[in-house]
């Protein structure tokens, strides 16, 4: 476990937003975070399940967790700017 995992994650509320806005909100938040920081995005667009992981893959960030509950999709991302 890295020390960064003890740091409070950054939360992004992307509920009610349709694609690609959840990705844009995640992208803009990640730009302000450092490698090792975590981002938690909450979305109601089912497309976010595919798009946020796709955005993470092409930009080198890691999806730690995807949880679906009460029509919400909660995606946790670990930021990696080192590539």
């Amino acid at each position, binding site marked *: 476990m890295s020390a960064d995992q003890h740091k409070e994650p950054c939360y992004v509320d992307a509920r009610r937003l349709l694609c690609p806005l959840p990705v844009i909100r995640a992208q803009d938040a990640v730009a302000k975070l450092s490698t090792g920081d975590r981002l938690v995005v909450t979305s109601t667009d089912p*497309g976010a399940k595919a*798009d946020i992981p796709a955005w993470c893959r*092409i930009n080198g960030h890691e999806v730690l967790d995807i949880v679906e509950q009460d029509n919400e999709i909660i995606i946790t991302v670990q930021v990696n700017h080192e590539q």
Partner: protein
Amino acid sequence: MKQQRKAVALISGGLDSMLAVKVIQEQGIHVEGINFFTGFCVEGHTHAVRKKHQDKQKRNNALWVAEQLGIKLHIVDVVEEYKDILLNPAHGYGKNVNPCLDCKTFMVKKAVQWIKEHNFDFIITGEVVGQRPMSQRRETMPVVAKESGGNDLLVRPLSAKQLPETLPEREGWLDREKLYDFSGRTRKPQMALAAKFGFKDYAQPAGGCCMLTDENYAIKLQDMWHNRPSRDYELDDIIMLKMGRHFRLAPHLKLIIGREEGENRFMQGYKNQFMSIYPTSHPGALCLVDGEFKSDEERDQALALVARYSQGKNDPQVKLVIRQSTGEEQEYSISPMLPDDINKDWLI
């Protein structure tokens, strides 16, 4: 050591921009993608809201294309800036409310700004001479290059041999002979090139990737403009134009009635922005009220119409609640509207 040249590509998610990137990558150029979100982009899973479309692929095509090509994609929110392009297009509209020429110029201009900020060398697009009636004509493609400030930094790899030589070609960063001379509306050359590159799965949306080229959407947008004091709009306005059935009962009153469960669920999120109506005695559609009731008759007309879209449509009475955006609720009982009483002119 030879300097690694870098290009940014306008990525729509369609085949042409995908091919344009691949052609340039083949020449050893580092390419990254940029995708502009105007609010009017057609995306497969905008329709994911609707349950009937749930068998369709739920992916953002621009992201998918970037991943296939192994490039980074920068998605830029231009919703606010884009309003001026849509409301005041210097070159006018196309067949619907599509300001294609101004739109392309705007996007290339944004890309020019982006390459300066990120130290990239040039811009590529998937444009093809003669492919589209407004922005991709032989006469208008130089207009885009000039008015955007892209000038000879703007490379269209699929039609490069039909166009004047660009700086990357003159400087030897690109071999003009390895670029293409596609023109016209036929898609055959693109399909052949896709096959050559081994691309089997790609999006080819009819009419491009913009809702503004869609006739039904354009009618709803024009109705909104016509019935408001100003043509200005917010993102929520243009999203709502994609949702539900729209009934214009009066200039000051429009009903948006959900077509199915997915839309009803999505529209629930707008209950604190709009007055809403929903049946309580029977399952049925959620209605958002854009405007106000100026009389009890208008209110009852709206209630009866919403009752028509409930499972109580054949019952003598349906109970419904009118909920104000502030949360106050009042219940009513009404006879559902008969099909013959629905004025065909109401449906936008």
